[in-house]
């Protein structure tokens, strides 16, 4: 917890940023508690950033360490970019949650434990030989012991529910307690309870009762000498909502359809962490969206290609293993030059890897994972809300240039959330598409002189009957051709077509010194917040460090090469073993260094800051 001025009024202390981690068994409702805390804080006016951490198993044995589910939320009175390096407060609903998360809490941090669950059986499941509440494990932390389960049960003894139902409300008791501790209003959650359980008034009543009981307990129990207030943040004016990356992605694709006036067709096969996109889009039937849960990832992209052939927005979505399966069909899309978008939400690989953990190790797969010379445009959002903009951008590029585009997100962005300043639909530029109709002038593989895009002639147009396919095409006519010279020309066209997208994308922006300096930290994707925060801190200490974040990875923005050359050193920070670094070195012949990790977790700000410190020394000021 960072206190700005530590001002004390009565016993309320003002802080400018707090990070809380709710952790419990996967049946304990920690995601729900975290999300409610987030929405309440966002609606209150704080900036927020969240990171859920789910177990891979659907229901690992209750009380076990693999069964622990956690949700971290950071909220602040200023603009923040990450869910916080480490929690200031850990809410541990059982011994396994404490065991799994204690190491992340810095000494001096606050730990709120549900003492009721610290019995012999649960301690054993959590691999504690003796009770950590009594054996000194928690020395140096501020430990608040609360019998959450039994207090919840007492609050609900007359609620008319059975013991199991009552026990399921204990997350709301804990939430109520946190609302008191951080001086949040109860109303948003009370409203949510009312709406959510409108068909079940007993449960609604019980949840509201225990939420209030938790709050009142905080007020009366005198466990906490003070409670805290985090004032509103100074955000840009406008209307906001809290949104996850995957939700923003789905809305972005829907908006792209709106901006083109075309039907969105989404083919997908369920896979963590991309399934949310399918589930979201499936809700939008009244927008005319067609969702197709395919038999596998190959069928999903095949159907998207079929939809695009028919003149619709062909979209497919998956994660790394599914992207691998789509390779051959992506090659087909490159050959037939139809516009499709492939959304790939990365997770830890290789193979099945760690499905619920994040990673950025599919960049080279997106760039090169196909047979033949097979360039595909790649874009990557940097924050959860930016998934919306980059989803629209992916289709804008695909449709303008008649190319497949990979939208490369990651699990951290997909599940993480932040406030989103709602765009005004009227202000978004329309995406223009045309379909030829004139048989006298139509040639299937004639090209637009500027973009090299071929015409998008669609079935149903009289006189334009033509055949496309995966065999090499004759320039202009599109007939099958085995001519070597023609093949050479077509391979170069397809590459040139992707290269020319560079003329149509914004330059990469520099935070810091546009004119150059000692170090540029280059990143892409979900590492944005951590890199930006680290660079801001380093600059505040007077270091000559800047950062730039790529949203367009193929092709690169045209100003990237000159930009890199203006810095003495370049550091590429990414959650892989150096994939962007490989590309940047090859393309620009710069001696870029790497900061790499593949733990399945995002960078901490501190990790990047330490690397910066090792590369740049403060200039000795001789004044």
């Amino acid at each position, binding site marked *: 917890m960072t206190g700005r001025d530590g001002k004390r009024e009565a016993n309320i202390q003002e802080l400018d940023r707090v990070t809380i981690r709710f952790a419990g068994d996967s049946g304990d409702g920690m995601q729900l508690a975290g999300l409610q805390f987030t929405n309440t804080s966002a609606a209150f006016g704080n900036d927020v950033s969240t990171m859920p951490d789910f177990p891979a198993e659907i229901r690992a044995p209750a009380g076990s360490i693999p069964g622990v589910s956690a949700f971290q939320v950071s909220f602040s009175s200023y603009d923040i970019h990450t869910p916080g390096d480490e929690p200031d407060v850990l809410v541990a609903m059982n011994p396994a949650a404490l065991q799994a998360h204690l190491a992340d809490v810095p000494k001096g941090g606050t730990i709120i434990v549900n003492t009721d669950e610290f019995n012999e059986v649960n301690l054993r499941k959590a691999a504690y030989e003796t009770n950590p509440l009594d054996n000194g494990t928690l020395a140096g932390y501020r430990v608040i012991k609360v019998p959450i389960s039994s207090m919840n049960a007492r609050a609900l003894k007359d609620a008319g529910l059975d013991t199991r139902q009552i026990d399921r409300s204990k997350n709301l008791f804990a939430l109520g307690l946190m609302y008191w501790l951080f001086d949040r209003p109860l109303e948003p959650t009370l409203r949510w309870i009312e709406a959510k359980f409108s068909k079940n008034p007993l449960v609604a009543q019980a949840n509201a009762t225990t939420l209030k009981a938790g709050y009142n307990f905080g007020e009366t129990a005198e466990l906490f000498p003070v409670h805290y207030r985090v004032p509103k943040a100074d955000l840009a004016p406008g209307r906001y*909502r809290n949104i996850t990356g995957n939700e923003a992605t789905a809305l972005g694709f829907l908006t792209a359809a709106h901006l083109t006036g075309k039907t969105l067709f989404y083919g997908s096969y369920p896979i963590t962490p991309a399934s949310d996109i399918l589930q979201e889009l499936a809700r939008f039937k009244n927008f005319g969206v067609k969702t197709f849960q395919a038999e596998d990832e190959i069928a999903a992209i*095949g159907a998207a290609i079929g939809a695009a052939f028919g003149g619709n927005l*062909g979209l497919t979505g998956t994660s790394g293993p599914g992207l691998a399966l789509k390779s051959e069909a992506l090659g087909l899309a490159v050959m037939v030059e139809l516009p499709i978008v492939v959304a790939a939400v990365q997770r830890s690989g290789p193979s099945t890897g760690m499905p619920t953990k994040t990673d950025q190790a599919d960049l080279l797969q997106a760039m090169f994972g196909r047979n033949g010379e097979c360039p595909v445009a790649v874009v990557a959002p940097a924050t959860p809300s930016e998934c919306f903009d980059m989803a629209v951008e992916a289709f804008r590029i695909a449709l303008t240039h008649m190319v497949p585009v990979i939208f490369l997100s990651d699990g951290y962005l997909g599940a993480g959330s932040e406030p989103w300043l709602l765009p005004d639909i009227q202000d978004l530029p329309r995406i223009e598409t045309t379909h030829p109709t004139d048989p006298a002038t139509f040639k299937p593989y004639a090209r637009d002189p500027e973009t090299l895009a071929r015409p998008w002639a669609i079935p149903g147009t009289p006189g334009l009957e033509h055949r496309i396919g995966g065999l090499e095409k004759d320039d202009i006519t599109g007939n099958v051709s085995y001519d070597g010279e023609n093949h050479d020309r077509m391979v170069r066209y397809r590459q040139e077509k992707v290269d020319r997208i560079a003329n149509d994308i914004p330059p990469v922006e520099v935070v810091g010194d546009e004119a150059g300096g000692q170090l540029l930290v280059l990143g892409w994707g979900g590492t944005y917040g951590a890199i930006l925060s680290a660079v801001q801190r380093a600059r505040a200490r007077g270091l000559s460090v800047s950062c730039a974040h790529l949203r367009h990875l193929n092709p690169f923005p045209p100003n990237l090469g000159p930009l890199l050359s203006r810095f003495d050193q370049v550091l590429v920070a990414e959650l892989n073993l150096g994939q962007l670094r490989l590309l940047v070195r090859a393309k620009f012949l710069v001696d870029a260094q790497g900061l790499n990790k593949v733990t399945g977790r995002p960078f901490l700000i501190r990790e990047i800051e330490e690397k910066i410190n090792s590369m740049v020394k403060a200039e000795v000021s001789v004044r």
Partner: protein
Amino acid sequence: MTSGAPRAPETPHVPLARKDFVSDQEVRWCPGCGDYSILAQTQKLMPDLGIPREKIVFISGIGCSSRLPYYMNTYGFHSIHGRAPTIATGLKASRPDLQVWVVTGDGDALSIGGNHILHILRRNVDVVIVLFNNRIYGLTKGQYSPTSELGKRTKSSPLGTIDYPLNPLSVALGAEATFVARSLDIDVHHLISTLDRAAHHKGTSFVEVYQNCNVYNDGAFMEFADKAVRPDRTIQLEHGKPLIFGKDRDQGIRLNGTTAEIVHLGNGVTEADLLVHDETRPDPAVAGILARLQWPQFPVPMGVLRAVQRPTYDDLMEEQIQQAVSRQGKGDLAALLAEGDTWTVG
């Protein structure tokens, strides 16, 4: 949002002829290949369907058979090995106004594309699938296929195959396809009338065509398909008629429990004892018994084994959208973006 082709200058409506469906591409199959006949019957059928040329799309995978779209003067898509059903599903589901054909081979449909075939059939996407079964990999020059007979010696099975073959009709019936038929490349009248039936069926139509690969598996079907022996060694299925075959129409198929047996008419056996063919049985079990009749134990059934009605995938998809619109109203994007808790700053 709209789908469908842009409006084009009005074209005068003249009845089309076979030549209107012949593309300008040179046909490149081996001389004598059964594919020529299937192409010819397909082109001949097209004008009779009364569908404008621009509304017809042929989609194929990879194989000799899958070259067919290049020779049709319609829209066409020669895709990748085994995946034609996926592209057809996406196209038909997003453009129900088109008539979509899938052309595939025994390897394309039942080996690499086996998964997709099952799923397009069970979903009942309104397309016609024509599977050219030559019981061999033609394009890759003669390896055995999933329909090659057990023990067959080919380039990749010099000692004979040890893979038990798939029966395409059993596969289709297993997926509860709504239209399942079999025809023969050299029986041109039967072929065109079977394709015609398939084209008029609403839902996925699955037609297996026995096709001779005269280079790598010549005469694969001749033992029963040769004109001289065909009446005795095949049986023509006709809806509502008893199963009779033979040059002299003196033999029939009778069901003994779930077992089929050949009986000779006369000596107390009459037509009334025979199985009467009913394409419309909801349960595919009897069609399944017919699908498994094989030469030399039985005459080979030809014609339509099954033709039943079930809602199509593309119609159901449209319906759900219409229902959602009438229930929730047409989507309001600005309202959707602002869904849930929102707050205003400044």
